[in-house]
């Protein structure tokens, strides 16, 4: 069965189906992370004391820069397809995936250190919400990397047969990736700086 409206916009919505679909999905994601941010507020206002600067701020600052950089390489990969430069697309998409790995590696070192010194979720409310929120975010990063890797590798064959459809796919994958970046933009000050 052929999937409708993958290239041409659907007349009633004015959008290709995938784009409307990803935005509806991202709306549900806003509610998922919103529930956790809401829990964070509730836990924090109810806490007698709340730790300040107990996490590794310099490392997390580097990780923030890494994710922001991956966002621009992601949007550049889409822009490269729009200018029909497939070679550049591969380079930018490859860099995005690589930056995802860098983010995960830094997070691995952070988590390892916490576990080593006994700062595990059961230690305090702060570490419980820290591991829950960053853990869920990390799963999103991994999910995005799997999708991006598919579009960098086997999925990129579509460029030869249906370039516009492939460009739309990359745009939609990009919307998800930018959302993951956006969540981190709020997680970073909330957990590391305040």
């Amino acid at each position, binding site marked *: 069965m052929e999937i409708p409206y993958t290239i041409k916009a659907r007349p009633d919505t004015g959008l290709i189906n995938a784009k409307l679909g990803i935005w509806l999905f991202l709306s549900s994601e806003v509610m998922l992370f919103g529930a956790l941010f809401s829990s964070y507020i509730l836990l924090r206002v109810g806490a007698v004391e709340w730790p300040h600067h107990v996490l590794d701020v310099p490392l997390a600052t580097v990780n923030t820069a890494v994710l922001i950089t991956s966002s*621009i390489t992601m949007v550049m990969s889409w822009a490269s397809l729009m200018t029909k430069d497939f070679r550049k697309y591969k380079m930018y998409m490859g860099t995005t995936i690589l930056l995802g790995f860098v983010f995960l590696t830094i997070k691995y070192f952070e988590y390892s250190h916490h576990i080593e010194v006994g700062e595990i979720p059961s230690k305090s409310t702060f570490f419980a919400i820290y591991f829950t929120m960053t853990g869920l975010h990390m799963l999103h990063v991994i999910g995005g990397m799997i999708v991006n890797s598919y579009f960098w590798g086997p999925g990129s064959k579509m460029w030869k047969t249906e370039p516009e459809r492939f460009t739309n796919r990359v745009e939609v994958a990009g919307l998800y990736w930018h959302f993951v970046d956006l969540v981190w933009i709020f997680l970073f000050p909330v957990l590391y700086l305040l």
Partner: protein
Amino acid sequence: MELSHAEDIKKHVRVYISVFATLLALTIITVTISYFNLSVVPAIIVALIIASVKGSLVASYFMHLISEKKMIYAALCLTTVFFLVLIFIPLLAMSDRIH
């Protein structure tokens, strides 16, 4: 967007680079301010304002929300309403606290 808009895309790329530089600068600013030892309320306000500006930049330019179709704005307006309800639920709990 159609493939024929290649020239427009080149202009967009310049915007993306400016947004990227702004995001990095705001990250440095927010980290620097966190070391000023402001009291809790101003610190939260400043950090959340900077995070909101950064988030808006990502959503507007990288996610192209600045020039999207009405249907997406409608879905996001509804999401915003429910998100705000979710965020303000803790305030209800605060007013319900037993002293």
